[in-house]
């Protein structure tokens, strides 16, 4: 049953690709951008890694555990993403796949850190220092995530507000359009023109209305919960703050983990924005009868935003695959 649904869902994707060849071209272009950036950025980022972890074997174990859980988390995220896409019908699975994948990744890294949670601790020794989540957050990446989250919320609010039920009565799954068409006709060449004004209505979908946005909102709520726990645990992970050399290495590892968590959020936000924008463009585009210039312009801008979201998601994927060095 699940296999059948999965094949159906994948066929839908294939249909989308056939209907809009530019979508396929865009995916190929994005994949090329990803691999080129991975190559260039990877070399640069890997050069920065210069950790003196020999002095702290426990911290080296923590780093290894965090990295291995990050990569195994990526694998688990892909599997969960495919399963979710297959199990939930009508593109519902695809709509929450980025958030589900990010949640799985966050949980995996969090569990990996728990295996060496006390790596930096020396019982009975500590510094009277207050460590907060904000201390370790990457400023630029976090700001971008907040901006994209705000944009995505606005877009989702709009799509939820304008969506209508589809032909099967499922609420918030289609986009309704209407326009007036004036036709002129006459009986013969000498007769006057007879103008006829006709109101045309219809709907097209799938459109990311409440049918999808409720699930997306729920998935992001769960992601936010796990992300908050992960970031708090990352900040309060015990350490011997008296040893300044250990503090330097430990701070770097915390920043690395925080960047990974925020990158997972960024991937979810960018991926979801891309998916929603693509659906909006496809549902509002290609209506040969009605000429809605403002709508076309809006769809074009939303499409551009979605493309930016896809690029951002790819960049976040690079940050996940290639953790930062000690550049700060």
């Amino acid at each position: 049953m699940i296999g059948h649904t999965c094949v159906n869902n994948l066929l839908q994707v294939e249909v989308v690709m056939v209907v809009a060849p530019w979508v396929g071209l865009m995916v190929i272009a994005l994949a090329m951008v990803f691999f080129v950036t991975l190559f260039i950025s990877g070399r640069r980022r890997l050069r920065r890694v210069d950790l003196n972890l020999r002095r702290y074997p426990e911290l080296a174990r923590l780093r290894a555990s965090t990295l291995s859980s990050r990569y195994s988390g990526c694998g688990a995220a892909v599997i969960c993403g495919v399963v979710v896409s297959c199990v939930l019908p009508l593109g519902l699975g695809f709509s929450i796949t980025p958030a589900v994948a990010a949640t799985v990744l966050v949980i995996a890294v969090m569990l990996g850190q728990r295996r060496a949670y006390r790596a930096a601790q020396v019982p009975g020794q500590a510094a009277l220092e207050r460590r907060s989540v904000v201390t370790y957050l990457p400023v630029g990446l976090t700001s971008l995530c907040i901006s994209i989250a705000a944009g995505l919320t606005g877009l989702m609010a709009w799509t939820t507000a304008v969506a209508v039920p589809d032909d099967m009565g499922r609420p918030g799954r289609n986009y309704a359009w209407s326009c007036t068409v004036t036709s002129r006709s006459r009986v013969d060449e000498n007769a006057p023109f007879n103008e006829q004004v006709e109101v045309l209505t219809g709907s097209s979908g799938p459109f990311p209305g409440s049918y999808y946005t409720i699930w997306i909102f729920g998935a992001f709520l769960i992601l936010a919960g796990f992300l908050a726990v992960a970031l708090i645990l990352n900040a309060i992970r015990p350490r011997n703050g008296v040893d300044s050399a250990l503090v330097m290495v430990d701070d770097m590892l915390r920043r690395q983990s925080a960047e990974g968590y925020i990158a997972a959020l960024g991937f979810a936000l960018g991926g979801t924005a891309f998916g929603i924008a693509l659906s909006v463009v496809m549902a509002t585009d290609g209506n040969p009868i009605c000429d809605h210039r403002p709508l076309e312009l809006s769809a074009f801008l939303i499409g551009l935003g979605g493309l930016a979201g896809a690029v951002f998601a790819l960049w976040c994927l690079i940050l996940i695959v290639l953790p930062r060095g000690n550049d700060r």
Partner: protein
Amino acid sequence: MSVALRLDSTDPTPAYEQLRRQIASAIIAGMIPAGTRLPTVRQLAGDLGLAPGTVMRAYAELETTGLIISRRGAGTIAADLTGSRPTDSIFRLAVDFVSSSRQLGAHDQMIRDAINRALEEQPEHS
């Protein structure tokens, strides 16, 4: 500037008292500026490998002597001692001394004798 905290496992003094004493000394000596946010109970307990209740007790005693201020939602901050009279600071040091002496099993007369002896050894105009 962060203050180093070191608990001696061979010291018979309870961990909360060792902790209280070290934080109190740092605040009175001005090593922790007024308004500095102290670590959360959970974080400090984790760092030192103690139960949260131990740190909570140390914080509660520090709050009783007016050295720290705990506010719900705002965390724990070091109190401002600059406006306090010299007698207040001396009283805080005395509370600290008496508390430490009690941990060693000293009774009132022993504590008074120790203060008198210290005063004799360090006269006022020395």
